[in-house]
């Protein structure tokens, strides 16, 4: 019997069509059809400038957007040949690991829900809410953040970041422990996950599978350890590895990776180089920024000299004091702080040359490939520039594309019921698969 497990299906998170040829409940042949969420990321990136691609990258793997942002920025920075300050690397690492946490929470929660464990799903979504509140404190948005910029990040971590972060991690650890208690030795869960969706290490490598899917089968390839970027080589963490390559191993790998992500964030927050020295409010008189601009326009220098601008919450963390720690020194790559844009002519010229139509960031002609460790595996960005203001070609190497190409082989031989945990542990994110 031919069964069309059609694009819209309650057990398929994401839109994908599986045409299965069945013999009773046994799947004899399976064919996957993807492309339902293809939005032309690569074509659209050729029409906007380099920083304009950032919102498109958010929407690739939309459960871990900062990892996509970071991958793209690092590829373009490699292409241009600029480097960012060390604190900026640490901030990017912290935000990436928080994104990885949200991704793994979503994956395990959704898999558990499809197997009937609705409670685990809700607990993990609760933990994800805490993390999203953290992300909102830093970036202003929960999901589609556009946090990184070519040459830095949008804003520094707020001063009161450490305590909410510790609170959120305490809640997340509680949730992970509860999930372990509910799932890991649960007879039904183990029976459905163990022995299903087995892939051997050689097959996984032949398909180009990376990330937790590959690590569940044995090889300990992790881009953060093997090809370290940002400051991952200075942070101590472990890479969990499975043995049999079945769904249970991949679930355990993801659970342990969440703990390791939290460990990375805590280490990074401890080792981060200190932020800027805050201007002493007694000697540096705070003046509201709009007032300062008005006084400067009429030339009233005495009124504003010795003052420091106080901007609104949108620009928090991206002021002149923070700029040295979140932006590259290359002035022609990144926008100036707003005090400079409105306060002096050099800042205004710098802003103009980067933003106005016809002007803009123009890297030298070249090509660069930079891989980062996405939540699903190696997320590589390959950028080609022809010296003009728009990228000539931006290619995303999507990690779940390789895993989905192996899905038919994983499904054949199992029953339809085995498709649910297998598909859940693939963690197919439509935005990344189809772009």
């Amino acid at each position: 019997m031919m069964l069309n497990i059609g694009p819209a299906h309650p057990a398929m998170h994401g839109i994908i069509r599986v045409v299965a040829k069945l013999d009773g409940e046994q799947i004899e042949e399976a064919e996957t059809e993807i492309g339902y969420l293809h939005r032309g990321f690569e074509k659209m990136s050729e029409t906007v400038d380099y920083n304009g691609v950032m919102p498109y990258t958010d929407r690739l793997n939309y459960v871990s957007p900062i990892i996509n942002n970071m991958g793209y920025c690092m590829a373009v920075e490699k292409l241009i040949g600029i480097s960012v300050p060390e604190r900026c690397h640490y901030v990017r690492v912290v935000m990436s690991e928080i994104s990885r946490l949200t991704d793994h929470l979503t994956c395990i929660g959704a898999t558990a829900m499809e197997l009937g464990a609705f409670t685990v799903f809700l607990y993990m979504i609760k933990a994800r809410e805490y993390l999203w509140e953290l992300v909102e404190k830093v970036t202003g948005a929960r999901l589609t953040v556009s946090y990184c910029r070519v040459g830095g990040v949008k804003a520094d971590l707020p001063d009161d970041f450490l305590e909410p972060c510790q609170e959120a991690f305490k809640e997340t650890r509680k949730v992970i422990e509860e999930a372990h208690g509910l799932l890991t030795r649960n007879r039904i869960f183990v029976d459905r996950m163990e022995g299903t969706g087995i892939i051997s290490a050689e097959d996984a490598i032949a398909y180009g599978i990376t990330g937790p899917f590959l690590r569940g089968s044995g090889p300990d390839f992790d881009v953060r350890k093997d090809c370290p970027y940002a400051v991952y080589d200075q942070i101590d963490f472990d890479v969990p590895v499975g043995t049999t390559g079945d769904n249970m191993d991949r679930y355990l790998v993801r659970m342990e990776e969440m703990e390791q992500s939290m460990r990375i964030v805590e280490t990074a927050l401890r080792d981060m180089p200190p932020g800027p020295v805050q201007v002493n409010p007694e000697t540096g008189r705070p003046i509201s920024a709009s007032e300062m601009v008005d006084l400067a326009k009429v030339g009233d220098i005495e009124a504003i000299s010795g003052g420091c601008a106080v901007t609104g919450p949108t620009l928090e963390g991206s002021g002149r004091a923070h700029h040295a720690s979140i932006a590259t020194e290359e002035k022609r790559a990144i926008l100036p702080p707003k005090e400079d844009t409105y306060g002096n002519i050099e800042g205004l010229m710098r802003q103009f040359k980067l933003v106005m139509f016809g002007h803009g960031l123009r890297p030298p002609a070249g090509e660069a490939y930079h891989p980062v460790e996405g939540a699903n595996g190696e997320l590589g960005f390959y950028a080609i520039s022809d010296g003009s203001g728009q990228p000539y070609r931006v290619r995303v190497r999507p990690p779940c594309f390789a895993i989905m190409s192996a899905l038919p082989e994983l499904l054949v031989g199992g029953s339809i019921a085995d498709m649910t945990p297998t598909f859940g542990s693939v963690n197919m994110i439509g935005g990344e698969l189809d772009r």
Partner: protein
Amino acid sequence: MNAAELIQSVTSRYADRVRSSHDYRGDATIVLQHEALVEVAQFLKEDPALQMNFLMDLTAVDYSTFGKAAKPAFFTSSGVTLKPSSEIPDADPWPGPPGSERYAVVYHFYSMSHKHRLRLVVPVDESVDDLDTLTGLWVGANWLEREVWDMFGITFRGHPDLKRILMYDGFEGHPLRKDYPVNKRQPLIGPQN
């Protein structure tokens, strides 16, 4: 192996098939004649010093409008042209598009044991059935080559099932080609304009 040694180990063996090579920004890149693709790929996979067991990415680039972006006439000398910082020395500028052919198919390889990467660039023309499939060596090449066919129209000889993957079956044209307009609508269901 570092980039120079990687390039050396391939060019020393296939000197007549390698058109050029460079390591711009530290990425070892070899521009190869299309006839030698499968042979070189097999060498990369099986040679014990290289052991490139991962075919990480397979994509293509359409170089037909390279450097010909429409510039507003009164802004020809504008823009913030960037030079790299002194930390990243730019001894050799990028050599440019790999050949006079319209497309270049780009393969990224990675070795898990030696932890090194290599990029193979194979220039092809659209009209000739030049390239052989790599599905015999890496199974993952199947879907990647289907995507290149879908987006660019480059065929692969010997591919088991070359059909549309991201676009729907009746789609006309190849979207990532530079002459496919970005705002052209071809909906399966809906207004056609």
